[in-house]
């Protein structure tokens, strides 16, 4: 279990992580979600004792990272797959890590096998593809058979096969009863990977809940309507106080109304409907809505529709 209490990190005047409190439970994959620059990596570095919090603390099973004896046996982490000397072989990289925490040399071969790198173990890690580097990083995280695992954006830049492998791998680790915290800026990815979500924006906690709860609470329900009399229907719906958006193909997207109500209104005024379909708002939209104010670097989005 990971427990952050009032965790804060300031760089000069910039506040990267602001009074962040959350818990990560064992036996589940917890997604750590936020836009780029939200403070996810900084938080993970503080969990690992690499960065010193300006205030607050973070505990792993009740202890700070620095208090752990031979910490690779308790916490495994993959923060950056490129943290490997490019001229060192994959095996040598794992060997020194294993040695430092008193892990037997055969454990190196076991984890290499686990991630499928046995054949390339003697090759220099600098020549690895991103997917292979990620696997090597995961092998390093698993060396000490830890109860707690941290992964920072593990699927970034991977092909679909690699993404699927990592996703299933993390779910397997959680199913073993381990605590798994995985950061991402992609809600769609987390929705299929994580059971719990810790969502942050600009260093602050936005929500902590189960993934289902988060998705239900935050997605906006709309109804898509196609009609040869779209203009007339649209005006009537606006009169009723619903929000109506006309899309490029001439269909209407209505917010705030159930499909039944729209059907009744259309029937009452003799408007022909070609389509009347309730839509689940996309996860990405929900995420944008929630974190929209807390994105550090805004790109100007061109307005579409009306």
């Amino acid at each position, binding site marked *: 279990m990971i427990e952050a209490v009032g965790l804060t990190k300031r760089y000069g005047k910039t506040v990267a992580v602001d009074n962040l409190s959350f818990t990560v439970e064992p036996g589940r994959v917890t997604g750590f979600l936020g836009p780029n620059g939200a403070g996810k990596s900084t938080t993970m570095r503080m969990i690992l004792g*690499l960065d010193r919090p300006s205030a607050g603390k973070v505990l792993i099973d009740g202890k700070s990272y620095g208090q752990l004896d031979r910490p690779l046996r308790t916490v495994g982490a993959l923060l950056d797959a490129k943290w490997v000397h490019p001229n060192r072989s994959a095996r040598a990289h794992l060997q020194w890590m294993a040695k430092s925490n008193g892990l037997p040399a055969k454990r190196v071969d076991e984890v290499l096998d686990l991630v499928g790198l046995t054949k390339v173990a003697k090759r220099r890690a600098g020549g690895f593809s991103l997917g292979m580097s990620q696997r090597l990083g995961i092998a390093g995280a698993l060396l000490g058979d830890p109860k707690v695992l941290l992964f920072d954006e593990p699927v970034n830049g991977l092909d679909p096969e690699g993404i699927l492998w990592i996703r299933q791998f993390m779910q397997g680790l959680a199913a073993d009863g381990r605590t798994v915290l995985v950061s991402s800026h992609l809600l769609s990815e987390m929705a299929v990977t994580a059971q719990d979500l810790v969502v942050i924006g600009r260093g602050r906690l936005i929500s902590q809940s189960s993934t289902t709860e988060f998705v239900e609470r935050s997605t906006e329900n709309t109804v898509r309507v196609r009609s040869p009399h779209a203009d007339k229907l649209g005006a009537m719906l606006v009169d009723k106080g619903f929000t109506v958006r006309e899309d490029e193909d001439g269909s209407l997207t209505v917010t705030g109304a159930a499909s039944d109500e729209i059907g009744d209104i259309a029937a009452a005024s003799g408007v022909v409907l070609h389509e009347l379909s309730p839509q689940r708002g996309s996860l990405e939209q929900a995420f944008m809505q929630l974190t929209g104010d807390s994105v550090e670097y805004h790109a100007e989005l061109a307005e579409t529709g009306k």
Partner: protein
Amino acid sequence: MTLLAVERIKLFSTRSPWWCMLLALGSTIGITAIIAANWDGAPMPVLGAVFSYTFGLFVIMVMAALAVTTEYRFGTIKSTFQAVPDRVSPMIAKAVVVMLLSGLVGLAAAFGSWGLSWVLADDNSDLALTTANDWRHVAGIGLVFAAGALLALGIGALVRHTAGAVSIILVFALVVENVVALIPNIGDDIQKWMPFTVVNKFIFGDPDPSAIPEGAGPPAIGELSPWGSFAYFAGIALAIYIISLVVVKRRDA
């Protein structure tokens, strides 16, 4: 002990330390060979055989700086501190391994140079190591290499960038220490306390009178005795190294 093994694995599982050690040996011994082969007329003194030690010293200091800066360059320092969160013990282990290795390379370079001079010089009657001073001229190079490596480790850990650390070491040793002497009035007084100038006296200072005619040997300036000179150099190296430990402990990795 396990941390020493960790640092040994790290150092020897990449190629640059091997190249640096070969280069340190090759440059020192090679230049000595040229000197020895061209030594005519008079018997070659012990000092002549070790005159080129600074070439190897700078290369070994680059190796030591690299041992730290590449860890920062490639992020393995973070894995190191993840594995050993107290941070100080792996840095000390690294210093022990790198200093031992540097000391051995220093001894190999010194005795290699001396042995080759013995073979190549026309007249090697003065080359025998008969006095304590003779031994210091040669074996002392091992100590200087080890202390220099410690200094380079400290600078490397403070600066964290290979180019920065190597430039500081080379520019200071090769340029600054010579240029300060040009400052009017006080230049000479400053120069004689410059660490690489001082450590020269440990190697070249107080030769036995028979070996070198008065005033003809390599420069050995400074206020301290030869061993005092070494203590001064090693003290500076240790001080900078300890400062680097404090900084590494406090700084975000």
